[in-house]
């Protein structure tokens, strides 16, 4: 049997090392081509994960299990179910776009830039595939190193502050999670997640472990009020960094809820206090952060706040404990992966030309970049959750699930449809519409062929997921149903 998952993890990492070894600063073109080839290979090896995926079962597929650290019963144990496989595909796809997007924009230390993204791509695939807690932790932490360097080396003026804040926030959470992992190992004698799913735990233990896991994953999501690193990191990160940060790394936080928190601590999660706590925080993220987004003057900060608001929908969906809510949350994750990546790429297109992402510096871009304006319009609509785009599917399902539980939750969540439209379209109006704002805007050139196809690919993804979400929902359906059945069982 071909080890598809190992290929998905190691092909990009090996390609990244190759780029580092071969690429020279003077000969940036070679580094770019090797990186593109590596990213393409990395994407191609993940395709069998979808085509050969068995939709009928929620059991782990493509499983590989080897002794890794026998001293501690730690295994190199990877496998995917219907939930994680989607994110591996998404990640490999986004990596390809990121390498392509950085083709001209990055001119200093190209080899290191490309290598950082490739290595991070492999490591992220590892985090989604890991079924052993320590293996997961290694991948989860290892992805901080390339991201720290990406923000710090190629970022904006305040990049050092942003990079350190990003690193320390995430590290705090994950270290507490490590303590919880060791505690669970002490209880169960194993680091395998499947063993932990069956491990009986008292309510008090579950609550304490919940706090540790929450610290780790909520920072990553990020949930209000520990979200403040994200709006700081985004404006300072280079375009590629923002894309990966928004499209992928945030998803790992939400994925942690599905893979760790819900199945390991079902009783704590179902308890009214914690479920209520999570729903409250999610609603604050949806509504309050939506208002905060309205007040932003910087495009990247605005999209960052919009990401937090959208991720609030995801966590809300998870803690409604219904198939629709859970599937809605997951669909929202995938959709947000595409939409936020697209929006950050659009900002990147403008940034490459004018070296600013402050809204006030623009105005009337539609006059000089008509094709670009059309693309941004579509992605803005998707961000606002317009029916027919991917953004609608997830939000609709979550609101549907919320109505069944409580009208007011649904009401507050639905506010996001209005708020999302308000801040996205208002930004669109200020940047794209109106008369030509200044001489710089007048000098803008429309999309080149590379940028056109880059954004065109994402248009296809956004529309496909919006019009015909069935292939995505089918993949996750059985896994979601079984997960919810598992969460409904008490472990006390």
């Amino acid at each position: 049997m071909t080890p598809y998952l190992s290929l998905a993890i190691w092909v990009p990492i090996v390609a990244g090392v190759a780029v580092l070894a071969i690429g020279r600063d003077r000969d940036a073109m070679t580094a770019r081509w090797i990186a593109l080839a590596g990213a393409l290979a990395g994407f191609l090896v993940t395709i069998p994960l979808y085509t050969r995926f068995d939709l009928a079962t929620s059991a782990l597929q493509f499983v590989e299990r080897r002794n890794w650290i026998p001293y501690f019963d730690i295994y190199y144990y990877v496998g995917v179910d219907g939930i994680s496989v989607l994110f591996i595909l998404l990640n490999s796809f986004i990596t390809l776009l990121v390498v392509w997007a950085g083709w001209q924009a990055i001119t200093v230390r190209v080899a290191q830039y490309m290598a950082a993204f490739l290595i991070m791509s492999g490591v992220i695939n590892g985090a989604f595939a890991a079924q052993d807690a320590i293996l997961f932790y290694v991948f989860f932490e290892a992805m901080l190193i390339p991201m720290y360097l990406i923000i710090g080396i190629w970022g904006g003026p305040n990049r050092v502050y942003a990079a350190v804040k990003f690193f320390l926030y995430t590290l705090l959470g994950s270290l507490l999670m490590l303590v919880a992992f060791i505690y669970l190992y002490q209880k169960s004698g194993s680091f395998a997640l499947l063993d932990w799913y069956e491990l009986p735990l008292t309510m008090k233990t579950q609550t304490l472990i919940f706090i540790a896991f929450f610290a780790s994953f909520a920072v990553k999501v990020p949930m209000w009020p520990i979200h403040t690193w994200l709006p700081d990191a985004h404006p300072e990160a280079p375009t590629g960094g923002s894309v990966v940060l928004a499209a992928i790394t945030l998803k790992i936080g939400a994925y942690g809820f599905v893979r760790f928190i819900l199945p390991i601590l079902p009783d704590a999660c179902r308890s009214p206090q914690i479920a209520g706590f999570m729903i409250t925080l999610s609603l604050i993220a949806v509504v309050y952060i939506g208002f905060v987004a309205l007040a932003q003057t910087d495009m990247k900060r605005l999209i960052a706040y919009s990401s937090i608001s959208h991720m609030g929908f995801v966590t809300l969906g998870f803690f409604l404990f219904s198939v629709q809510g859970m599937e809605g949350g997951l669909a929202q994750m995938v959709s947000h992966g595409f939409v936020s990546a697209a929006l950050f790429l659009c900002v990147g297109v403008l940034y490459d030309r004018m070296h600013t992402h402050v809204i006030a510096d623009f105005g009337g871009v539609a006059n000089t970049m008509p094709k670009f304006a059309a693309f941004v319009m579509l992605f803005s609509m998707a961000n606002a959750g317009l029916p027919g785009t991917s953004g609608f599917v997830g939000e609709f399902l979550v609101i549907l699930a919320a109505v069944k539980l409580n009208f007011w939750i649904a009401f507050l969540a639905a506010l996001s449809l209005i708020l999302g439209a308000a801040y996205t379209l208002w930004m669109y109006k200020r940047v794209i519409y109106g008369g030509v704002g200044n001489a710089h805007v007048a000098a803008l050139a429309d999309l080149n062929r590379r940028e056109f196809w880059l954004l065109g690919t994402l248009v296809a993804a956004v529309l496909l997921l919006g019009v015909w979400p069935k292939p995505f929902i089918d993949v996750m359906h059985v896994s979601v149903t079984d997960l919810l059945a598992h969460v409904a069982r008490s472990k006390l």
Partner: protein
Amino acid sequence: MNFQPVLPEIVIATAASLILLVDVWMPDEKRHVSYWLTQFALLIAACVTVRGMHDEIVHAFHNVMVADMVADVLRVFSFIALSLVLFYSRAYLAARGLFRGETFVLMLFALLGMQVLITANHFLTLYLGLELMSLSLYALVALQRDERVPSEAAMKYFVLGALASGILLYGMSMIYGATGTLQIDLVAQSLVGKGDNPVLLVFGLVFVVSAIAFKLGAVPYHMWVPDVYQGAPTAITLLIGTVPEFAAFAMLLRLLAGALGGAEMLLQWQGMLAILSLLSVTLGHVVAIAQTNLKRMLAYSTIANMGYVLMGFLGADVYGYTAAMFYILSYVMTSLVSFGMILLLSRDGFEADRIDDLKGLNQRSPWWAFIMLLAMFSLAGVPPTIGFYGKLLVLQSAIKVGYVWLAIVGVLAALIGAFYYLRIVKLMYFDDPVDRSPIEVRGDTQWLMSANGLALLLFGILPQLLMGLCAVALAQSAYF
């Protein structure tokens, strides 16, 4: 008389004496002969130790020495570490007129002291080894005798070290008073089921633990560490920060696990180690943030790291000791790189020991920046470097015996520590270089340093090799 268990000691003692003699007849331009003789002696000693690896416990010289597998492994690690220290510091020593016979001889005598300490089965043997090691190290710190700062460091080291030795002797004398023997395994035997004189014993234990904490540099016995690390010539800092850690672990093992490992005493020293560990990890990491001198910063980092060693050790079973030993090993591997990097960047008249001297290293040399990056992330305990598994093991060991709070403090302190390790990475990668002079490195140093740095990553991906080695060695040791 069975000399086999102490063959490595004999090799080193003979080599030290021989080099002392040979060096007298050497003209200055032939100093490298003594240098290579030293390296050769280390190689022979390592080969002898590996060949005679003990899978059973052998006592020698009327039971004052013991050779077991853990002693063999620790000795081999010491040989390798000292050899690397010599390779890394050769250019530095030469540039400062320290490339002399007495440097090598003193290093070998220090090593001999460590070996005696590692194989001690008797309080007095242990004490002798400790003194031989310490006296040689004091002299090494003071090698640049006309410089003010190293002399001051040596003086502090000597006065405080002598105090600690006195404390150790005092503690041993009380244990002798309570048990009537100085032989480590007999002390353990006579304590079995006998809680009849706990006050005297606990009193002695306090002194013994204090002395060990001093040698490790754990808070509140850490005062000498920053001054000595900063004041000593960097080559000697590299030596002090690495090789003696193995001997310090042996001292912990022989005294606490060996002599006082019985159930009554164990509870007593577990609590003491927990407090020492708590203070070391927090104070070490917090104070390190304020440092501008790289050597001083790494000194505080050492203090914090010794706190983690104690955290592992208080697990007090074979897993706990394995955790501590693996942590020491990973720490020494990392320290060789971090202190070695200062040596590598220094040149005649330039110490490279300020944090700012690392600015823009990535632009000057991406490779060395990458190696230093690995060392920093290893110290911060970020996977996939070996430092992470050290942290994993010691945290597991603490949680297992119920010290969950200590583990939580440990990880929070690690977070504080990550801040200043990240600052180093920031300086290397995000800032522009101030000093653009090319980095010239000897060929052998280049290869060894690269291998050493990559080993941090390699053993981070495959940690089982070293973990298994530590576990097997400890399982075969005299106390299980």
